[in-house]
């Protein structure tokens, strides 16, 4: 059995078991992509993104540990300079992790700190290159994660401000070597440092989101800004994807009750 509650009802103690917060966001924004395997030029364009986020309380540490999952997909279309060349890029991201929760300031402030497994798969396609038309993206990171949310009332209505920050510190990444072709990797089977360990030094990346929740009727809506900065410098190939997005969606809170 499921029940839905609004922001006001979200002041429950963290120890409440079986609570699931689910959020669906849709975003549009601008992106700036560089991948020197394809081109030395920065490509800029429009990106659309979907984010599905789920947080559920667990019985670990007396209910103070929550599980976090994120499923996110985006696609973008870009040009460079005066629109001479174009690229298309897409990425799917899945995160799973756990946060330790602190409730502070009489329940107004909730701090969550923990770690995530951050899995990403995607591509960048350059529409006019010959034997290097596309670059595959595949990487797995371990990311410390912080979430801070603060509840307050304004004009006699409940609001919640939330900030999320994920920063990968280490991981592994697939990458062709500097001048290595995909033909050589997949047709000839020539491996050359194609699975590369990464750290926050060679892959300084960051994903953060600032949002505000508000109620309209019995529904909770969320609007916010997402900044997603994925970068790497491996095998002498430089890559960055800088995305700035306006996100909008809704939040639902469920409680799974035991069947009678």
């Amino acid at each position: 059995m499921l029940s839905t509650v609004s922001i006001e009802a979200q002041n429950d103690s963290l120890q409440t078991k079986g609570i699931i917060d689910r959020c669906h966001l849709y975003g549009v924004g601008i992106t700036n992509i560089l991948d020197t395997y394809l081109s030395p030029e920065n490509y800029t364009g429009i990106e659309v993104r979907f984010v599905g986020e789920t947080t559920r309380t667990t019985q670990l540490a007396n209910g103070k540990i929550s599980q976090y999952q994120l499923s996110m997909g985006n696609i973008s279309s870009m040009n460079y300079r005066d629109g001479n060349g174009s690229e298309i890029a897409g990425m799917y991201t899945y995160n799973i992790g756990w946060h330790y929760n602190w409730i502070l300031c009489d329940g107004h402030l909730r701090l969550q700190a923990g770690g995530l497994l951050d899995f990403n798969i995607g591509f960048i396609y350059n529409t006019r290159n010959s034997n290097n038309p596309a670059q595959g993206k595949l990487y797995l990171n371990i990311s410390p994660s912080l979430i801070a949310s603060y509840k307050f009332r304004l004009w006699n209505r409940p609001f919640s401000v939330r900030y999320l920050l994920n920063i990968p510190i280490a991981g592994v990444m697939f990458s062709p070597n500097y001048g290595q072709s995909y033909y050589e990797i997949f047709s000839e089977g020539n491996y050359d440092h194609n699975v590369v360990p990464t750290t926050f030094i060679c892959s300084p990346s960051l994903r953060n989101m600032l949002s505000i929740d508000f109620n309209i009727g019995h529904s909770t809506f969320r609007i916010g800004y997402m900044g997603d900065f994925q970068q790497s410098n491996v095998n002498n190939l430089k890559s960055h994807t800088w995305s700035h997005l306006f996100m909008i969606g809704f939040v639902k809170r469920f409680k799974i009750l035991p069947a009678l």
Partner: protein
Amino acid sequence: MKRLFTLLFIVALTVVSFTSCVEEEQFSDTPEGNFEALWKIIDQHYCFFDYKKEVYGLDWDEVYAKYKPQINDNMNETQLFEVLGKMLGELRDGHVNLYSSYDLSRYWSWYEDYPSNFSDTLQRNYLGTDYRLASGIKYTILDDNIGYVYCGTFENDLGDSNLDQMLLYLAPCNGLIIDVRNNGGGKIVSAEKLASRFTDNKLLVGYMQHKTGTGHSDFSSMETQYLEPSDGIRWHKKVVVITNRKVFSSANEYVKYMRCCDNVTQIGDKSGGGAGFPYSSELPCGWSVRFSACQIFDKDKNSTEFGIEPDNNVSLSTTDFLRGKDTIIEFARKKLSE
């Protein structure tokens, strides 16, 4: 204390992540900016600097010094294209091109400076009009029971069924001529597929080497290239491969593969070469540039960038031309009849 340390660590990570942009130098869209961008792309990615320094003394820094004074902000687009095209011409590489919307810079001296050794007028005397045609390959049986196959491109995907049907049709022939003259290349897998019909064993046919860094000598180890025999119909009798100077890139690779097979003779002119696997990049003004990025070698680790010498160097003769005879095909027929 532990939590404080964790918090400080995360704050430090945030600072590092916010302040460490992974960026590439962006040149301005001016004649000078485009010149610098092109010179750098080639400097960091081109794969034949060491080899060509040895063969004809190519020095990319000298090329910079030679062409940089020709660049100024008053030059128009056409003048810039001409200077950049000439600079790329110093590489003497058919895989190096600059593409604008109105022109293509190229170095084609590897065949333009030599006799073509191919005439489609003469070829028509052998193929006739009732030849078979599969996946772009023309084939027929000549009146001395020699099979004649003309493969003018590897741009097409060659199907197993196409090749099975072709070899089945030619099976009664005493020998086979595979004419790849004027074949400027295409898909390397098509070249492999056709060559795989001429060996029963897995053959070492060459080596590949890619760049691992921006330095002129930053290369991976030489990785072996093998030719696997096809599971379909394979040819076991004598074969002559006919080449001319316009045989380039994947077609040059095909000749390299065939020379590793038994019962194969190469006749005609030296092939054109093109042993670099081409990549693309682009300039601030929107022009696209293609260049050789990976080196390919033959089974003895020699570069085939400047072509493969035939076993028998034969050219079209004027006398034969007037008689409607293709000297090279006639030589091949004689060779197969021996």
